[in-house]
Structures are given as structure tokens and as C-alpha cells.
């Protein structure tokens, strides 16, 4: 194991900002929840059932999935160019997963009851359970893999098997998360067997975007990067990023056109989606990022643009799937209206703060720059 050039980016600043954000947001969330319970959210029986906290959960667990894909390029598929960022990606996969789970825990009515009620009364038909099983297994495997890598064991049989097992676990986990939405035939905006594949693609692109962003934040700029990292950031990484992004753009356009054309009740929400400027911002950011990646400029800004775009996309997917009311009559005469509350937005801040604080902590304490000797 070699230790590469010491990081020069704004790690300390981000760690302080992350910690401040975490304390403030968690404080505000706790005040809201302790005073009002989940009435502090703008969700409801006649409104949106799964609101912004679930959007945040899906965004971050799929980002974790994507980061594992990026790490697996080196550790499972043997693309050695990706070794210099592999350890950082594994650590970031852990913290994004924790951020997602934290958001969900604040959203569930009885998170502690969940800990015993699910194992003792396991409903094997529920996609939610399998999602929990495989994401929990994934978290365990990821931590074990990180432990191995952190101890300098990159290539032993056990270490490699842990890498492969983590990859397989997360492919299944994200698939079951796709099943949570894709199985809902009564909500046609979500329904479909290809939803897990759509999640896989968008997860991969979100993992690539976070891997790029965090690498740039670590070193500050390309000039400060070790040579192998710089080569990766100017070569293979933006190419892989652009290729997956192109497929994601096609998937978004394809879903939109199909939704607009089809006539099943529930799909009229697509008219509402394309009437919103957010949809066009989402699409524009993705397309612009794609062309910026092709021109060979620094992939950092495309990464930021894609992260923003994907968050809009997750919001659009999860909220829009619920906007057409089911048998609410004059209680809800049109589409459901939903604006997240302050407490819900603070959960978003909390999750991002966990990610940035967690990453900065790892960067300072866990030697995330490490790579195998031959690298």
C-alpha cells in the first residue's frame, strides 16, 4: 500500500460545514418531530403519502449503489485505472447509505418497532422487506470490504470475494427498491418491470457524479492531483460518466414520451411534469453535462449539474407517481398539491451534511487515497 499526495482541497472547511449543517438540521428536525410528530411533514392521507424524506432516501441509497459500481470497476471487473479512487468510493458508499437510512428512519412511524417486527413477522411477498434485507447485507459487506482495504488487503481471496459479494448484494438491493415502485400496477406512472433497470442506470450515473465531485473536493484542482488520479479524471472517468449519462438521458426521454402518449388514467400526470420548469432544468442540466464531458473540460461541474438534475429526477419520480388522487372525490378535485415543509427540507440538509461530514472525516482519518502497491 502506498500513501499518495496529501489532500489539498477544502476538506477542513467541508467537514466544519457538514458538522454545522448536521447539528442545525438535526436540531430543527427534532424540534419539528417532537412538537408535532409527523404532522411536521406536509404529507397526508388525502395528499402525498411518501414525501421528500423518501425522495432523499431513494436518492442517497441509489447514490451508494452507484459508488459501489464505480469501486467495482477496479475491484470486481479489473479496470485498474479506477483503483486510485476505489477506497474513497467504498467509504462514500457507506456514508451515503447511512444518510439515506437516516432520512428514512425519521420518516417511518415506528422505526424502533421495525427492528423487531420485520424479522419476527417477515412478509416474503413485500418488496420492501427484500429491499431491507439486501441493503442491510450490502451495508455489512461494504463495511467488511472497507475494513479489509483499510488494513491494506486489496487482493486476498477474501477481500476479492467481499468485493464481488458487495456488488451482487447491491445489484439485488437496488432491484428490490425498483420493485417497491415498479410492482405498483395501481400507480401506472411507476409501474413496470424495467423500473429496476432505470434505477440501475440512474444509480450508476449518480455514483459517477459523486465520485468525480468528491475527488475534486479532495484535491482542490487537477494540478494538485496525483498523476494517476489526474489521468483518470481526464480520461476513463469522464468517458464512462458520459456513456452512462447518455443512456440515462435516453431513459428519461423515453419514459416521458411514453407517459405523455399513453392514455391510462394516472399517466395524465406527465402533462403536469412537462409543464413544470423543473423538468426542463433537469433535462437541460443532463444534456449540457453530457456535452461538457465530451469536450474534455473538467468533469467537476458536469458532476455537480448531474447531482442536481438527479435529485430533481428522484423528486419528480416519487412525488409525481402519487399526484393523481385515488378515490378522493371532492376532497381532492384536481391533482394533489404538495410543497415540502421546513422539517422535510431539513432532512435533505441533514442527509447531505452526513455525506459531506462523513466523507471529510474519512478523508482526514482513514487514508482514502490509498491504492494497491502496483498502482
Amino acid at each position, binding site marked *: 500500500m502506498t500513501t499518495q499526495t496529501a489532500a489539498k482541497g477544502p476538506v477542513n472547511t467541508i467537514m466544519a460545514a457538514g458538522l454545522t449543517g448536521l447539528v442545525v438540521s438535526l436540531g430543527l428536525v427534532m424540534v419539528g418531530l417532537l412538537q408535532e410528530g409527523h404532522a411536521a411533514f406536509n404529507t397526508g*392521507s388525502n395528499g402525498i403519502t411518501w414525501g421528500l424524506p423518501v425522495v432523499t432516501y431513494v436518492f442517497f441509497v441509489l447514490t451508494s449503489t452507484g459508488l459501489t459500481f464505480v469501486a467495482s470497476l477496479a475491484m470486481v471487473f479489473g479496470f485498474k485505472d479506477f483503483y486510485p479512487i476505489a477506497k474513497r468510493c467504498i467509504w462514500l458508499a457507506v456514508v451515503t447509505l447511512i444518510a439515506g437510512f437516516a432520512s428514512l428512519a425519521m420518516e417511518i412511524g415506528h422505526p424502533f418497532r421495525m427492528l423487531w417486527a420485520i424479522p419476527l413477522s417477515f412478509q416474503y411477498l413485500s418488496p420492501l422487506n427484500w429491499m431491507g434485507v439486501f441493503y442491510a447485507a450490502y451495508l455489512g459487506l461494504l463495511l467488511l470490504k472497507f475494513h479489509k482495504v483499510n488494513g491494506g488487503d486489496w487482493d486476498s481471496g477474501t477481500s476479492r470475494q467481499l468485493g464481488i459479494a458487495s456488488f451482487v448484494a447491491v445489484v439485488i438491493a437496488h432491484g428490490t427498491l425498483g420493485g417497491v415502485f415498479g410492482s405498483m400496477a395501481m400507480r401506472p406512472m411507476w409501474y413496470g418491470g424495467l423500473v429496476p433497470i432505470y434505477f440501475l442506470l440512474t444509480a450508476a450515473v449518480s455514483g459517477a457524479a459523486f465520485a468525480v465531485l468528491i475527488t475534486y473536493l479532495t484535491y482542490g484542482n487537477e494540478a494538485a492531483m496525483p498523476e494517476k488520479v489526474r489521468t483518470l479524471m481526464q480520461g476513463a472517468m469522464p468517458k464512462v460518466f458520459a456513456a452512462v449519462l447518455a443512456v440515462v438521458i435516453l431513459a428519461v426521454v423515453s419514459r416521458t414520451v411514453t407517459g405523455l402518449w399513453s392514455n391510462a388514467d394516472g399517466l395524465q400526470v406527465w402533462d403536469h411534469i412537462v409543464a413544470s420548469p423543473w423538468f426542463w432544468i433537469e433535462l437541460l442540466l443532463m444534456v449540457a453535462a453530457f456535452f461538457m464531458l465530451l469536450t474534455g473540460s473538467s468533469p467537476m461541474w458536469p458532476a455537480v449539474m448531474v447531482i442536481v438534475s438527479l435529485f430533481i429526477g428522484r423528486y419528480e419520480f416519487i412525488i409525481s407517481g402519487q399526484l393523481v388522487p385515488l378515490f378522493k372525490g371532492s376532497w381532492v378535485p384536481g391533482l394533489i398539491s404538495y410543497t415540502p415543509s421546513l422539517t422535510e427540507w431539513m432532512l435533505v440538509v441533514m442527509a447531505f451534511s452526513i455525506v459531506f461530514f462523513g466523507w471529510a472525516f474519512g478523508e482526514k482519518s482513514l487514508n482514502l487515497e490509498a491504492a494497491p502497491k502496483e498502482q
Partner: protein
Amino acid sequence: MAKWGMVIDLEKCTGCQACSTACQMENNRLPGENYQDVLYYTEGKQPAPTLSWFPRPCMHCEEPSCMHVCPTKATFKTEDGVVLIDWNKCIGCKFCMIACPYGVRFYTDEKPLIEPNIKSVFKGEGDLSWNPPYKGPQQDASHGVGIQPNGVVSKCTFCYHKISKAPKGTPDLSNDDPALREFVPACVRTCAPTARYFGDLDNPNSKVNRLISAKKGVRLLDHTGNKPQVYYLTGGGAAGGAIPSSRANDKKA
């Protein structure tokens, strides 16, 4: 064992909402969170507008999608065909609310429909969401009966606290037999035009079965495969005949 079901005659329903009111009182419901609701729809413009209404309890489906998605089996089906929630096992993930095609599940931890907030005026004791001045049935959390606790989902129980005490083998629970009145679900018992019938769908001689057969009872959204145990008599149309397509309304959010 009975398989309890309901028949609602849309040609007799006047939309008076006595069923909703009786249900609210019986089951301690908060404003706007009606296990049993009469949904109103307006369509068209003057001089020919249409006002229609549709009574909608929980469908107590034979294949309840809400039950299949519940990670803790808190939603379960009793031997007598009623879909209930065990509030002691519900974790409040709300997946059942997502998966129910009929929108009949409720999570009371939300902004109040009207001010002052009834939950603040009549504060609940312990884990209960509120403390209604009028108390319905005794608390039976394992069957989702009584005052709804915080952090769990609730739904129509077919007044399980009543029907579960009915004599075994009873084909129908109706007001016609004074000895059975106490066991009749509140919405059926109060229905002034007798548009509602409640009985055993497994008993070929029950009135509900004879009505379904004679008047061609149909089920709501049968294509979902949920197979509701609530049938509608429509005079020949589809169960959703009283409901305009949701895109008939103004869809601006």
C-alpha cells in the same frame, strides 16, 4: 367460517352521508379521515352540470395488495374474510397506503383538516392520537379497532368489534332481525334508504349473494385483481359508473 361482504345499491343511495357520520362516531375518526366516505364529483357546466356521488368503504379484498406489501404482516386477513391492521405491529411505513388502489387507508400524523386542531383540543393519552369526547368501541389494537395510535395506519374494519360477535352461521346481518342489530356494521345499520347489505359471501342463501346474482353486482376496479368483497348494484353499469374519470376534472395542481 363466514366470508363477510357488503353490497351497496347505487340506485338506492341518496348520498346523504349518514353512513360516513355513523362510521365517524362509531370508530372515533378525525375530520376528513373517513373509513367510510361518500365521494362527490362534479362534471360539466351550466346548463347541464352533473353531480354524482359514490359511497366507498374499504373493499376488504380477497387478494389485498395492501396486505401483500406490508413488511411486518401488520395488515392481515381474518378467517372470516376481513382485512385488519394490527396496530401493535404496524411500523408506519405507509407502503399499504401506496399499494391500495382504493385510497381507503389513513395516517393521522398530518396537518389538521380544520382549525382548531381537534387533536390539540382533545389531547390523546399515551400513544393515542386523540381523546374523542364520544368513545366508540373498546380499544383493540391488535385488530385496529378504537382510537388510532400515533405512527400507524388505520382503515375500515367492517366494524369488526360488532360483526365478530355475531352468532356463527348467520347468513346476513341486517336491521330486519332485531336480535342481530347490535352486530350490524354502523354504516349498514344507519343507512336510511337501505342501500347497504351485509352478509356471508360464502353462503349461497345469503341476501348479499342473491342480490349480487339477481342484480348483477359488480366490483370496483376489478382489473386490479384485488377482488373486492364489496359489490355494487348499478342497474347494469360498471361499479365506477358514478365516478367520472379523474382526468374529467381540472388537473391543475
